[in-house]
């Protein structure tokens, strides 16, 4: 059915470029129609993207990319415009296409000035993020990765709260700092690949095949990891996040939490494990990452619990959730990685919805202070119900999306590092400790403030926004198998690749590893001439 329209051939390109078409259309249209156009275009993207669910078949090309296509872009550098998805990126693409129209719909009342530019930027952001998740070329990836900064910078800086400039600059500089280090690492990797194969290429599949010495891996790993750690953010690189979230307008927060943070964790899964298998299972590295993840889980939960500002509270909970992702990934087993992936999806949905709900409260009361609310269940029961369900999904109640991911991630972490897994499991206690008091002080307790007693319940538009999100939370909680089975082959491939490198590289004596991996190289790369290898081997010592 889908293939009748040769869906597989054009879908990814249209997902990337339709937002740009929409952006141009929005910019050319009158101010008051901007939001409807933006909503329309992003809905088109959403509807089109839904076909991916069926178009992606986990049973074929196991662990590889699908729907992929490649066009030469900058031939001299070997940079190509190639797109494709696998079991890891498909859900992030879908998450993006889902959250964008919802965030746009959620900003109808919130955004009152310069609407045209705002919606154009939202579409530009969608373009960038889908690009990040579909790119199969490191150069293209980097371009998209950096490009997402620009719309977000303006969204925070123009439509944000009081300290918006500070937050926007902090967000921009902090994340740009990290990604510049990554750029250096990318260039090194590229040059290294060029020397080895003689053919310049940024394509993932080519880069994944080059063999690096453990020392190189550690250094490159650090550069990549820092960039992604800031983006995720992992403790202690998280301080930009609360500021950005608090100042950002509701739709900005939604997209930031639901999608932008995932670019960091996606980077971990997509690059760190396949590119640097030796480094990523080096005991010290694993220990550092796991520890940071656990500290993030516990520490962020504590900090969240004492926040007077509801939005800041939710922002800190993001850090805690991302901690679960990190420990899941660096558990380096299938359960952990699948759990981490599912936490990413679930966090996107539940935390995104929490920000939407807080935005709705802000529109009604013009405050984010938890103390200014109280007893809202009496006057806005539907809003309160949605809030409670979302909060419970966020703290991982079984039957909601949060549980499945956390359970698998914790189980995975526990399998490889019982102590770390055990410590991380205390996160379930602290999750209740930060979330329930907030729910109580906003929605329960006496209705003792006059302003609160006039609050309106959910409007029809708001119900339309919340309904799909809440249904998804329940669906993933009750029947996550369709998600898990789609991501399984890709996850398995990554894990197997990491494990295979153990036999290749003995972690004790890691100086001249590269020699033992030469046969591998010859198998993988087609057009090597022997002199190049000899040169490379001779120059190896100086490189190290």
């Amino acid at each position, binding site marked *: 059915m889908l293939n009748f329209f040769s869906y597989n051939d054009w879908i990814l390109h249209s997902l990337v470029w339709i937002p740009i078409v929409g952006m141009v259309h929005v910019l050319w249209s009158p101010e008051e129609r901007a939001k409807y156009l933006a909503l329309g275009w992003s809905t088109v993207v959403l509807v089109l993207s839904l076909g991916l669910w069926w178009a992606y078949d986990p049973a074929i090309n196991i662990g590889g990319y699908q729907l992929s296509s490649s066009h030469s872009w900058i031939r001299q550098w070997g940079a190509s415009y190639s797109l494709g998805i696998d079991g890891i990126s498909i859900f992030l693409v879908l998450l993006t296409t889902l959250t964008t129209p919802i965030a746009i719909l959620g900003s109808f009342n919130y955004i009152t000035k310069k609407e045209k530019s705002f919606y154009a930027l939202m579409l530009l952001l969608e373009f960038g993020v889908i690009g990040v998740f579909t790119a199969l070329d490191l150069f293209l990836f980097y371009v998209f990765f950096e490009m997402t900064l620009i719309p977000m910078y303006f969204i925070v800086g123009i439509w944000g709260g009081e300290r918006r400039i500070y937050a926007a600059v*902090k967000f921009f*500089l902090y994340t740009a700092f990290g990604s510049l280090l990554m750029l250096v690492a990318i260039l090194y990797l590229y040059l290294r690949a060029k020397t080895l194969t003689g053919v310049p290429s940024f394509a993932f599949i080519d880069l994944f095949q080059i063999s690096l010495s453990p020392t190189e891996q550690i250094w490159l790993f650090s550069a990549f990891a820092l960039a992604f750690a800031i983006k995720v953010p992992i403790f*202690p690189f*998280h*301080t*930009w996040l609360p500021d950005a979230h608090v100042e950002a307008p509701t739709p900005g927060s939604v997209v930031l939490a639901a999608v932008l943070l995932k670019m960091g964790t996606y980077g971990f899964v997509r690059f760190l494990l396949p590119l640097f298998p030796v480094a990523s299972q080096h005991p010290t590295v694993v220990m550092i990452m796991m520890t940071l993840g656990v500290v993030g889980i516990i*520490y962020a939960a*504590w*900090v969240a619990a*004492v*926040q007077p500002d509801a939005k800041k509270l939710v922002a800190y909970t993001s850090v805690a959730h991302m901690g679960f992702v990190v420990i899941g990934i660096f558990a380096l*087993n*299938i*359960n952990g990685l699948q759990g981490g992936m599912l936490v990413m999806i679930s966090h996107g949905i539940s935390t995104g919805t929490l920000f939407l709900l807080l935005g709705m409260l802000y529109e009604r009361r013009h405050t984010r202070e938890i103390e200014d609310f109280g*007893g809202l*269940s*009496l*006057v806005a*029961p*539907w809003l309160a*119900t949605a809030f409670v369900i979302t909060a*419970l999904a966020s703290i991982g*109640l*079984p039957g909601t999306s949060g*549980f*499945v991911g956390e*359970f*698998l991630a*914790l*189980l995975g972490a*526990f*399998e490889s590092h019982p102590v770390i*897994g*055990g410590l991380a*499991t*205390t996160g*379930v*206690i602290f*999750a*209740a*400790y930060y979330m*329930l*008091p907030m729910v*109580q002080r906003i*929605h*329960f*307790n006496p*209705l003792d403030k006059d302003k609160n*007693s*006039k609050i*309106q*319940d959910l409007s029809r538009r708001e119900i339309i926004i919340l309904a799909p999100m809440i249904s998804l939370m329940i669906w993933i909680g*009750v*029947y*996550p*198998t369709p998600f*898990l089975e789609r991501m*399984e082959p890709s*996850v*398995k491939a990554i894990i197997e690749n990491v494990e295979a490198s153990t036999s290749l590289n003995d972690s004790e004596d890691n100086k001249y590893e590269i020699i033992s991996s030469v046969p591998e190289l010859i198998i993988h790369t087609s057009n090597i001439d022997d002199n190049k290898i000899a040169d490379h081997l001779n120059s190896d010592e100086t490189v190290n």
Partner: protein
Amino acid sequence: MSNINLIQETGIGEGWEPLLPGLIILLPLLGFFINGVLALWEAKKSAAIIREGNEDTTAGLNSSKAHSWPGWIGPGVIGVAFVLTLINFVRMLEGEASEPIIREYWTWMATGSLEIAAAIQIDQLAIIMVLIITGIGFLIHIFSVGYMHGDPGYPRYFAYLNLFIFFMLILVMGSNYPVMFVGWEGVGLCSYLLIGYWFDQEEKASAGKKAFIVNRIGDFGFLLAVFLLFTNLGTFDYGSIFARGEEVFEYGGPLVTTITLFFLLAAVGKSAQIPLYIWLPDAMAGPTPVSALIHAATMVTAGVYLVARSSLLFAMAPVSSAIVAGIGVFTAFFAATIALKQYDIKKVLAYSTVSQLGYMFLGVGVGAYTAGFFHLITHAFFKALLFLGAGAVIHSMHYALHQTHKDWDAQDIRNMGGLRKCMPITWITMWIATLAISGIWPFAGFFSKDEIIWMTGSIAGADNAPYPGLYTVYWVMALVTAMLTVIYMTRLMIMAFHGMNRTGSKEFGHLHEAPKHMWIPLVVLAVFSVIGGWINVSKDIQQSFLGGFGNIPMAGWLHHWLEPVTESAHHIQEIHWGAISHSAPLGGGEVAWGALSTTAALIVLIVTVWMVRSDKISVATEDSDPRGLSKVIYNKWYVDEFYGHIFIRTLQRLSKFAWRIVDIKIIDRSVGIVAGGMRALGWLASLTQSGQVNTYAFIFTVGILLIFGIVIF
């Protein structure tokens, strides 16, 4: 639903065919959805009224459909579920199958290395639990129709209650630990929602929150235990775990001890045992039928169910079992002392529940899984009855005080007295429950409690008992606690129902017997509080005068019934502990001690009646503050305050420290310092930019000269 293959594979089909087991679970869920929709509808209307500034939200709403339907739907679905269960139970009795029936509905989670099915398991243990849950649940639903009538959140109440039954059924019917965990947390959620049912009162909302957070500590233990099981056995299913447990784990080894201790943590949280019992007394903030259903009869017994379900693991870990028993008996004693000095009728019952749960823990801890489970059953009857009776009393008191606008506490037993005249049915049924909980022959509690105490004593005398001295101490404490139980319950009954009425003459006229909806469940429960114990009379007692010289038809039935579930655990225990003794530590057989304990209980009862002297009691507002030891007991040994200081405040301080110092002052500031450092460097460099052309020219010249110098020399 591809369940047919599965049944054939495991070859269970021979015994019996269950009738729609999934429907038993689905019906309460259906009720939840219908009532939930009604509740949302209702809430929307009352919200509109509040927004207009009208205080009385009940005005004009009671007559609406949303207020008459839930009263039918809520109990209705549970009633049908109960009937279904009963049919299945009868079939199971006839089928005499020992293998559990497993129905697998869909794959819940599956990664490459694990597979968890959304599957239910019906076996002897589960079906009894389901009977209790749906049966007592049904009665309590009916009671609630009367009790909650006129409450603005009527449909919401039934929605929560149905949801609770749904999760509770998942808890007991799940065929693997993760599915059990769904129910485990789900009942916690419902408990949270129902404790904080009147959410607009801060203390009630806080009590709900406290229950949830404390329960989550237990959930943490559950998760870790399950993880440990998985890493060692590679599965979550009961069947494979218990089949392979014996070969994988070493008897008394550290691994199985750790697993069982984590399970114990879970059980302690859910079943309100020391040190996590603190949430249960606060949970009395919820409506009284909720206390009866969740916080007495069903949910809090989940911990006992967990231990009974995992009996094989506990049998292999004698240390954990001893700790289970120790926690149980100590909690039983400790809570009983607190109950002695409480005045709130529900608080007394709450501590009594904690205490009785302690007995159940003692039972399962000493390896008498059937006895512990037996007490769970009888306790469900008489404690539900006590709570519902208390509910009837509170309902009546509340009405009377409301009629005369008297600002008194409707739950304080000092404000009651003489109620037997106006509430005869409640009075009689509650006395039956009191006699049952006091362990007086031939009421239900006698047989179950006696068996637990007896088993404790005989374990102490077993051939190779691991800690005979310890078990002797447990035995003595259990006996003492039994007497304390008699005291606090008799005190409650005398103060509430006997002597002169202290409510006030005007109010006394308004006190009335509970309506039909409410007293019928009381009577039904009272009947079971009498005969409920006869299903498991031990052999010695059955043959003696206490057992009617062998005329009780179902004696020893439960023991036999649960054998498929507990036999392997008993087997392990027999191998390692040897034969248990047939006399108590001080000598004497089971019949002698049974007769002695009943006599002692009766004597204590009479002494208590004489001691309480209800004419000397003053009402709550005029009563003097307790002093000395009774003050300490009245304030519950100050445990809440202790926890507040040690744990909660520390955690809050840590949190504030993490935020104000670590996050703002250290992490964010160091980010700021890096950024500031960059600015400082920029500023330094900008110093060279004087703006004076001459200076630039001078530097330029010097530079050229330097370059020349370097090139030339």
